[in-house]
């Protein structure tokens, strides 16, 4: 992809897109393909598909120190390291330096960020699940948060479009709470996962186990510039085959092919300019991350896709006489209702059998057990509302099974060269309700190196989540035990908001401008040429991984914006 820093402050662009991650990439593609001259702003450096993936074909022995970080490296990514996996030398270059990009925590919040072209679309887990009507009606039905201004039928055609374009492999199930999509062939379950699948089919009328729905191309399918998944399971390093979807491999090249995109890197967007006489936004203020120069770029519409917290921070920093508390913040909800998914609880066990079986290839995907709680009267729970789904998988243990032992000698070595027993783990991902009290604020007393206020997090799980977690662990134990697993152990490692890397909700959509920030088409209620389509727009969190929904919502909003612009409804 050509890097163009030839953005021109004198030009009136049709659109500015802030951010190049999973939402920004889709906004750029859709707006450019509709013929809009679009300036795309990215705060970090360029990452070109294939050529800028430094570890994509590296093995552990190719990395110094066997792929472990030095204490000095670890100190600079202290918060990023809280996930336990992202700061591995295979992917640490895709995650921010916590010292250069500070934030503060009234309560612990694990904010895991990628500041570069492609954002976290390079490193995402690729699990791609539709939300169902049970999710879009949840707030209305149980009274938490505000009602979504859209329903499943509004978003369904956009799910179709996104799935077909990015390539999602999966199996159709016909479940209302997890609608089927346009799928490439499903990946295979292994022998032990099939055992649990059979137990659920035979003995649990409300539950089903399926292979994960994942944004990796399978079968004979290809996409422009992308070939099928090669089953290396090294997605997070960046895929030279384009086997999985990222902005870098897919949407940004598509936007570039139109000739309508100008991509400006090292561009820290920090304010949207509001023209009170016209009642619209007129541009975006940017600081060059390297030179610290200030620029203002102008456009007729603005798409905020900087990811949940940065988008919200930009809106909060966009103060004017009309909007003293942040652009479009008449409701006072901007920065509130922070959501994520809570997880890191479930169970694992050993399967005593299939010892003469193994698998071939490294599947970048696991199993999924869709939500089965609180879907109807029969599944109603007394202790919590909403629900959770399980992700996990079975594999044969490797040599690390002997780490916590004192065995030694030739026999140990020969034994560890063979695959060990089958082990299966289930981890539940649960819904976090939208609580007004869970919020971010800006701290103007602590500025980053660009002189911008840092974000403070004040977010916690409450009783509904803590009650749900008990069931998340208990049902994992029940299912594995029923399938005959041995040594089944439940666990709850404790989860902190942010660790799910599914931040949502700080500029929510809603029907009423008094209680929400955005309307049904992701326009700011009060500033209709500002669209917000990343995770900040979400009105509830469901329990499914949210990226597919961000993409569908973005494509829908971009179509809306382009049509309004063409019809002259946006000046």
């Amino acid at each position, binding site marked *: 992809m050509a890097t163009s820093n030839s953005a021109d402050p004198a030009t009136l662009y049709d659109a500015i897109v802030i951010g190049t991650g999973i939402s920004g990439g889709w906004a750029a593609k859709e707006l450019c393909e509709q013929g809009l001259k679009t300036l795309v702003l990215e705060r970090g450096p360029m990452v070109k598909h294939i050529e800028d993936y430094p570890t994509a*074909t590296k*093995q*552990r*022995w*190719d*990395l*110094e*120190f*066997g*792929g*472990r*970080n*030095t*204490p000095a490296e670890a100190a600079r990514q202290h918060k990023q390291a809280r996930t336990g996996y992202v700061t591995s030398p295979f992917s640490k270059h895709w995650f921010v330096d916590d010292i250069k990009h500070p934030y503060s925590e009234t309560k612990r919040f694990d904010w895991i960020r990628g500041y570069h072209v492609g954002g976290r679309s390079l490193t995402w887990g690729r699990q791609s699940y539709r939300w169902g009507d049970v999710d879009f009606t949840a707030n209305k039905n149980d009274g938490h948060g505000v009602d979504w201004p859209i329903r499943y039928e509004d978003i369904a055609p956009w799910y179709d479009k996104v799935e077909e374009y990015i390539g999602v492999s999966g199996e159709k199930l016909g479940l209302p709470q997890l609608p089927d999509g346009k799928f490439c062939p499903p*990946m*295979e*379950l*292994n*022998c032990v*996962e*099939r055992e649990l699948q059979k137990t659920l089919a035979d003995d649990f009328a409300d539950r089903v186990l399926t292979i994960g729905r994942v944004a990796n191309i399978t079968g004979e399918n290809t996409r422009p510039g992308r070939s099928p998944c*090669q*089953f*290396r399971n090294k997605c997070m390093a960046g895929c030279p085959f384009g086997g999985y979807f990222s902005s870098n491999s897919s949407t940004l090249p598509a936007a570039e092919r139109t000739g309508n995109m100008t991509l400006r890197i090292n561009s820290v967007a920090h304010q949207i300019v509001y023209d009170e006489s016209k009642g619209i936004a007129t541009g975006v203020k940017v600081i060059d991350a390297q030179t610290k120069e200030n620029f203002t770029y102008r456009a007729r519409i603005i798409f905020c896709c900087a990811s949940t917290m940065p988008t919200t921070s930009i809106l909060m920093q966009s103060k004017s006489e009309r909007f003293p508390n942040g652009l479009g913040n008449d409701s006072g909800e901007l920065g509130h209702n922070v959501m994520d998914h809570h997880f890191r609880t479930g169970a694992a066990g050993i399967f005593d059998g*299939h*010892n*003469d*079986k*193994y*698998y*071939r*290839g*490294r*599947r970048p995907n696991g199993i999924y057990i869709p939500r089965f709680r609180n879907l109807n009267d029969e599944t109603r729970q007394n202790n919590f509302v909403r629900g959770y789904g399980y992700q996990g998988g079975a594999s*044969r243990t*490797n*040599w*690390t099974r*002997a*780490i*916590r*032992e*004192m*065995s*030694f*000698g*030739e026999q*140990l*070595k*020969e034994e*560890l*060269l*063979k*695959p*060990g027993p089958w082990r299966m783990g289930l981890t539940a991902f649960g819904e976090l309700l939208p609580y007004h009290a869970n919020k971010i604020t800006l701290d103007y007393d602590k500025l980053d190196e660009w002189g911008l206020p840092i974000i403070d997090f004040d977010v916690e799980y409450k009783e509904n989540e803590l009650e749900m977690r008990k069931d998340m662990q208990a049902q994992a134990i029940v299912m594995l035990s029923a399938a005959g697993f041995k040594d089944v152990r439940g666990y709850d490692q404790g989860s902190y908001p942010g660790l799910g890397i599914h931040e949502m909700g700080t500029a929510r959509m809603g029907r009423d401008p008094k209680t929400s920030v955005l309307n049904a088409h992701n326009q700011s209620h009060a500033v209709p040429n500002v669209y917000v389509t990343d995770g900040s727009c979400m009105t509830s969190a469901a329990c499914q991984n949210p990226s597919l929904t961000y993409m569908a919502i973005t494509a829908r909003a971009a179509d809306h914006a382009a049509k309004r612009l063409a019809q002259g409804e946006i000046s």
Partner: protein
Amino acid sequence: MAEPRAPPVLLSLLASSTANAATWKAESFSTEVQHVVTHLVDVILPASATPGALDVNVPQFIDKLYGNIFSTAEQQYFSAGATAFANRFKQVFQQPASDGTRDQFAQLLGGYFNLSTQGQDRIFEQQNNDLAEIDPEERDVYLIYKFLLAVRQNTLRGYFNSEKVGKEVLNYDPVPGRYDGCVPLADIGNAWTL
């Protein structure tokens, strides 16, 4: 960066060496620690029909980890444990650890590692505590286990993550191209390289 590769002649020297293991220059280890670690590594994963830990330069790997990857606390535990282990060696064999043979190190290591499951669990539990929390009379043994367990764990890491074992001993398939979920183990053989 790849691990430094020793020429085959040197590898066979290392594999058969019993007296003087110092055929490579350590970055961080003293001569004595280098000698002790080299023999322990050989005892933990010896050469047989398949390569041993010395064939893939595991002592050099642990020396690099010690100097570059270990935290200050880990370095201190490792170093104090190595000293306590060398002192114990001298008590038992009436000679300096730097002159010890492979058989002597195997005997001493066996004394620490050949424990009942219960005995091992007690040690692992104790290892979770800081030195200050350990009864002064048990501190030498505690430190010796800090050292021996660090050597053992990093021997496994260095061996199974090495290029030679990854490519020639385990099943190496960098671009599988497909996933088959349930195939006879007999068709595969050894475990896959990760």
